[in-house]
């Protein structure tokens, strides 16, 4: 047998027969006692509820304020908004697309890692 082939065979044999180290002691009891102490996290936690409540309260406050402002003030705000937008278009044309791209980047940064994690979990 060619020496290199023989070496390959010896190495392959050693790799395949390399023994598993024996466990010094079983860990099942320890793992189970730790599991019984740490309950699984719920899918929706209390902080999710609190965050959801705060966001909902902010939206409700904005909506309530908009409904109760005097019509003249609403019209002034709308005019100022249009003027500001026109000002951007004339003096800083780059600002609106830049702001849009920035917003898209922020939303992507928030959602893409979660989506990737979900994809990896599904692949598993």
């Amino acid at each position, binding site marked *: *047998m060619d020496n290199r*082939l*023989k*070496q*390959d*065979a*010896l*190495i*392959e*044999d*050693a*790799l*395949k*027969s*390399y*023994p*598993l*180290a*024996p*466990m*010094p*002691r*079983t*860990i*099942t009891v*320890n*793992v*189970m006692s*730790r*599991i*019984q102490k*740490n309950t*699984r*996290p719920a899918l929706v936690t209390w902080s999710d509820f609190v965050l959801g409540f705060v966001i909902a309260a902010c939206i409700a406050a904005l909506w309530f304020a908009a409904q109760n402002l005097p019509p003249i003030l609403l019209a002034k705000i709308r005019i100022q908004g249009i003027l500001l937008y026109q000002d951007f278009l004339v003096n800083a044309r780059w600002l609106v697309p830049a702001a849009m791209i920035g917003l898209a980047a922020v939303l992507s940064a928030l959602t893409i890692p979660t989506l990737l994690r979900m994809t990896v*979990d*599904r*692949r*598993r």
Partner: protein
Amino acid sequence: MDSEQTLIQRAQKGNHDAFAALVEEHQRYVYNLALRVVKDENEALDLTQETFVRAWTALPNFRGQSQFRTWLYRIVTNLCYNRLPNLRRSLNDLGDDVMEDISEADSNIPAQEFESNETRKYLYQAIEELDTNYKLLITLRYQSELSYEEIASTLNLPLGTVKTGIFRAKEQLRKSLAHLEESWITV
């Protein structure tokens, strides 16, 4: 006796006995992988425990797309990466020179081809002395019997890097063997 799939489903629903059976079944392989990397019994036991605790927490997300043991290996290697920050870098630095399939020699050679059990013991010692990154790859390939693709997925490495790593590990073993053969000639 319940199949592994049934045990996983029961454990996902919160059955502790089913999970204990899974721990009993897989702990030795997880422990061995950790031991080859951290080279310390107590630390390896600690990592094995942590792996199963994390597996319990994440079990509801396990969709069964890969084998349960492959999933466990992914958890334990991530824990090893945390414990040994240089390990990931050394694996990435392997590059991907070897892109073609590595031929695996037929190990069913006649018993008389072995000079003695000494050769095998010498090779075991050489495997033990391999760099940690090579030992991790070798353990996943030969003790855990994962395919190259499964190793790449478990370690989150390109397939070429896995092949290169295993090829180089074997080259190191070949050098050790040549060294042994030379010592026989000189004696």
